[in-house]
Structure formats: C-alpha cells, structure tokens
C-alpha cells in the first residue's frame, strides 16, 4: 500500500542516522586498533613486520569494501557462521578502516624527521621516551587532519551496509521509498542528512590543517 511521505517518515530517517553514526564509531574503534598495529609494524625497523603491514594494506585496499561485507555476511553463513548484519558490518568496516588508518598513521610517524629522534636521543631519552614525548605528539598533529578526512569517507561508505540489511540511513531511505514511492524527495532528505554529518567534519579538518605546529 502506497502512502504519503509524512513528517513521521522524516523523523524515522533522522533516527536511522544514529545507526550510521554507531556503525562509523564501531568501525573507527575496530579500525583504530588494527590501524595502530599496522602503523607500528609499517614504521618498524624489522623487515618482516614492515612486509606484514604492506601485505595487509595491499590486500585490503585491493578488494572492494562491498566484497568484504559480502564475505563476512553471505560467505560465512555458507560455512555455517550466521553473523547478524551489524556484526558482519562492524568486522568488514574495521578491516577496511584499519588499512587506511594504518597507512595514514604510518605516514605520520615516518614524516617526523630523523633529526627529532636524534635530538631526543642526544638529551638521553630512551627509545620509548623518544616516541612518547617527541615523536608521537608530533605525529598526532600530522595525522589528525587526514584521519578526520577519512572519517568523512567512512560515514559515507557505511551506506554500503544497507546491502546486507543493516538498517542505517540509506537502508531506511530504501524502506521509506518502498512505502511512499517518492524516491526523489526521500533520497534528497537522505543526502541532506549525510551532508549534515560530513560537512562540519570537513570544515573541522581544514581548520586543523591550518594550525598545526610541526617541523616544516
């Protein structure tokens, strides 16, 4: 039965946005842990660890995110593991975010000049102290703008979770369209809601870019 697009539908869309946000945060947490590991391996002095990091990043980035979602949702169910959509999505997005965050953070770590390590070593700091007081604080400043930039990508990409039945903003849009048959109006609202999440972050990222204090 087709009905009118009502205020209630808009409200549902706004409420569905919270699942977009939740999935983004879950992916950031999982991806953050993986990313830290990958960054640490990628910036390590040990060849084996660097190779592992490169292989992980290469594999993940070489396969579409959608394929990862299918693997964890449909693929695992064939071999007997029926994951609920939100868990499959969290795993898929974490793997994906881990590769990108790992690369961003590795880049930030190795962007700090050797002379900074050396200056810290010269006043007697140990390796861990050099990292903690001199290198990581500077690397974080380098990493924040691209990390926030990646968050914007992540928010938009969570829409892919709709295809495995995770009801977030895009999926709610599909459902509303099916009920009201007003795709133009519905997807305009969906687009506006994504924009309202992403645009402030983009602005914030730009602002951060302008006021970081690092070696030039």
């Amino acid at each position: 039965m087709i009905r009118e697009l009502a205020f209630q539908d808009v409200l549902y869309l706004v409420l569905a946005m919270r699942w977009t946000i939740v999935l983004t945060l879950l992916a950031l947490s999982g991806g953050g842990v993986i990313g830290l590991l990958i960054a640490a391996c990628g910036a390590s002095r040990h060849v084996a660890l660097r190779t592992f990091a490169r292989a992980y990043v290469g594999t993940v980035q070489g396969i579409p995110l959608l394929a990862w979602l299918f693997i964890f949702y449909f693929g695992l169910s064939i071999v007997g593991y029926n994951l609920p959509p939100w868990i499959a999505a969290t795993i898929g997005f974490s793997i994906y975010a881990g590769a990108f965050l790992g690369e961003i953070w590795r880049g930030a770590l190795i962007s700090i000049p050797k002379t900074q390590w050396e200056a810290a070593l010269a006043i007697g700091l140990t390796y861990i102290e050099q990292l903690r007081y001199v290198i990581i604080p500077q690397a974080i400043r380098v990493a924040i703008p691209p990390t926030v930039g990646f968050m914007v990508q992540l928010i938009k990409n969570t829409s892919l979770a709709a295809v495995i039945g995770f009801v977030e903003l895009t999926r709610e849009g599909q459902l509303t369209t099916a009920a009201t048959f007003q795709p133009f109006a519905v997807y305009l609202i969906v687009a506006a809601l994504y924009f309202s999440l992403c645009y402030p972050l983009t602005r914030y990222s730009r602002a951060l870019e302008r006021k970081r204090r690092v070696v030039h």
Partner: protein
Amino acid sequence: MSFIELKSVVKRYGKHTVLQDVDLEVEKGEIIAIIGRSGSGKSTLLRCINGLEPVQGGEVWVDGVAVHDPSADLRELRARVGIVFQSFNLFPHLTVERNITLGPMIVKGMTADKAATLAREVLKKVGLEEKIKAYADELSGGQQQRVAIARSLAMSPSIMLFDEITSALDPELVGEVLLVLEAMARDGMTMLLVTHEMNFARRVANRVVFMNQGKVWEQGPAKDFFASPKTDELRSFLSSVLH
C-alpha cells in the same frame, strides 16, 4: 688518560670508510676547533664522541666511559656530553621551557619546579629569558640555536659538542650565537666545534684540528695553525676558505 681519548677510531658506512684510524686527545677545559672540507669526517667524529654513531674499530673514551663498548651506559653519558646541531632540532610542539625541562625531568628525575628555575637560568645565559613561553616557529634561527644551546646546558654537561651550529644561519645572526659560545669558553667548558668560522676558531679555540680524507691530517695551537700550515692539503684548504 685524557678527558676525551680517541684511539685508532674507524667508522664505516657499508663499504665507505668515513673515519680512518683517528687519534685525538682532549684535556678538560680545552676548546678544539675542527675544520676541513665537507665529507672529511668532521661531523662523524663529533657524533662518535657521544655515541650517536657506533664505531667499527678503535676506542672512544669520554670521561672514563668506554663509548665504543656496546654495553656502555650511553644514556648517562649523553647527560654529560651535550651536542648542538646545525639545524637546531628544537621540538616544535613544545614551548622553549618544555624543550629545556624535558631532559632534566625525564632523564634526571628533576621536579617541575626545579626544572623551571633551571630553564630560566640557562635561558639567561643565552640571553633569551623573555622567550620562555615561545614556540620554535616564533623564534629567529639565531634564537632557536641559542635555545638549543640552553637545552644542552640544562643537562649540566661537562663537554659540549657543536656541529656546524652557525652554518644554517643568516650571516647577521651568526654573531649572537658565537657570543654565547665565547661566554661558555670563558666559563671553562670543554668544547669541540666543527666550524667554518675560521676567524672564530682562531680567536677562541686553543687548538685547531684539520680533518682530511677521514684522518686527523694536521693539528696545532690556534695561533700558529693558520699562519704556518705544514701540509699542502691544509694550505690549499685555507687558501680556499680565507680570502
């Protein structure tokens, strides 16, 4: 044994030999200027003295510590041997004060209050007390280099190494840094400077060491050194830098 003693020191990067059987002795309170062409091993020599570069042969003794020994306590040594670099290398994310207090607080376990007092003290020595809350990018090159010197002084070193510390400065900023060095020399600090400032070397150093092809080619008291070079290599080097 001398305060600093290098015996047949060999330093290689892969197959490339940078230091070839270098011998050098430095007594407490001496001021040594090290000169030579780029690539002659001057900077490497300095960096071997506080263990920033491990050596492949020979012995490096600094104030009784065997720096060449892989099991040497270099952390403790580095607190006593300060080094200042050509490119200042201040920590850009920290204030001048924190740049200076970091070492004393972490390496020596000094309290924040004491370290802050110390920071003001050493900044006074380099004439930059008013910059204590500034960041590196708010300072001129000369000021950054003076802060870098203060940062080293805060560890109360007994030896200071200076690696071409005026080479990256605009000419009008060199003077203020050299003044700081002269004051330290008057205070009796043991200093080794790799430098291109020949006039400064002549005026302040007790002894000048000329490095060539990874060796100590010629050395002598500053006053005769420039006037009567003994080797052709030094003569040709001096004529290329002194006009």
